[in-house]
Each structure stands twice: as C-alpha cells, then as structure tokens.
C-alpha cells in the first residue's frame, strides 16, 4: 500500500520510539512486599481488635436487660 500513510511497521516503530519509564520506587520489590505483608496483617486482625475485653464489655451490656428481665 503506497497511499502516503505510514505502514504498520512504521506505526509500531513510532509507538516504540520512546521506552516506557523505569519502575517507580513504590513498585520496587522490597516496598511492594512490605505493602503486601501490611495488608495481609490488617486483614487477619480479629473483628473485636484491638481489645477483646472491650468486646466482652459490649456483649455484656447488650445482654444485661434480657438477663435482668
């Protein structure tokens, strides 16, 4: 095809003319691994964290009227 428009190969070459950037610091493996571990730790926290004593107090308060009645 010789219609003056660039060919497929020329277009591919134009799009490759500039390399994509290097990885930014927050995508470095060490940084990502710490983020992965932090998210994993947050996800595994028990529902009544930080204090199970607080949770017990909440439960006790909720049940008291029923027990008292």
């Amino acid at each position, binding site marked *: 095809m010789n219609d*003056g*428009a660039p*060919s497929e190969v020329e277009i591919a070459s*134009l799009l*490759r003319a500039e390399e994509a950037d290097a990885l930014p610091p927050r995508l470095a493996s060490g940084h*990502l691994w710490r983020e992965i571990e932090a998210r994993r730790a947050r996800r595994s926290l028990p529902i009544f964290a930080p204090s199970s004593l607080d949770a017990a107090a909440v439960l006790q308060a909720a049940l008291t009227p029923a027990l008292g009645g």
Partner: protein
Amino acid sequence: MDPHALSEDESLRAARSGDRAAFEVLHGRLAGPAYALARRLAGSPDLAADVVQDVFIELVNSARGYRFDGRLRAYVLRMVANSVYSAQRAIRLRTSGFPVRELDRGPEETAVAGSTAGAAWRALAQLDHAERVVVILRACHELPFPEIADVLTEPETTVKSRYHRAIERLRRKLAAWEDTT
C-alpha cells in the same frame, strides 16, 4: 530450592506462603511488563503505579482468581488492562463535564510533543480501550497474537481483526495529521 528455578506459578504459590525470595523472582519477571502496559494505557504515571501496586497485592494476598494454569503473565496483563479501564472510567464519571487532559496523553507525548511519534500516541489515545490494548501489546510489547488472545480471553481471529482495524484507523489519522503539517 533456587527460587530462580521456579516456574511463575510455583513462584506465586511460594509467595502466597510468605516466601519473599520467590516474590522477588515473580516481581523480576512480571513487574516491568505490567508497569509498561499500565503506563502506556493510563498515560498518568501515578495511575499506572496505583494499578500495578493493587494488582500485585491482590495477586499475592487473594486466593481467588488465578487458576494456576501456567498462564500467569497473561493473567497479570489482563488484570492490569482491566484495572486501568475501570480506574479511567471512575475518574471520567467523577469529573464528567471537566476535561481530563491527563487521560488523553500517551506516556511519550511529553518527550515527543509535536513529533510524528507524539501524533501516533495521540491517535492511539482516540481508539477504544480494547483496540489500544491490542496495539500496545503487539507493537510495543511485541507479543504474538496467541498470547494477546490469552490476555484478552478472546479468539485469536478476533484479536487479529481488531488489531488490523486499529492499525488502519491509525494510518488514516496519521495521514491526516501529516497533511496538516
């Protein structure tokens, strides 16, 4: 065992069990291509980094999704492409009525503004998302069509015809651009 001897699937299993060395191998193989795709699709480096970070966290911390079928690279690139699309759509919805210039720029535009390469990236930005993914994976990442079909979970014939249609549209846009310069 030497973590470099692990397959990508084995590296992911080990990383999910807390093996940092295995994660580093996985990161070494996949982070570069994932970020390059995100950067080229998203335009914005910040959005690209957000997407890739979330993809890796989801990949390692979630037991769902990947089926360990030996196609991890395609799975990761698919997650990246879908996440960029979702993020851009959310930004457009939040900012509807306002011009979002950043989304229309290819990563190279700043460096090559006014050049033919800049015009090629601007023309690419006018294609729809699926066409851009195919062109970037083929032209920039130099993936063969069967692999691109894997990324998009579409038949190879569909991917090929979309690619050739997209290239034809780019040719016309670039010819029009050259006529005006």
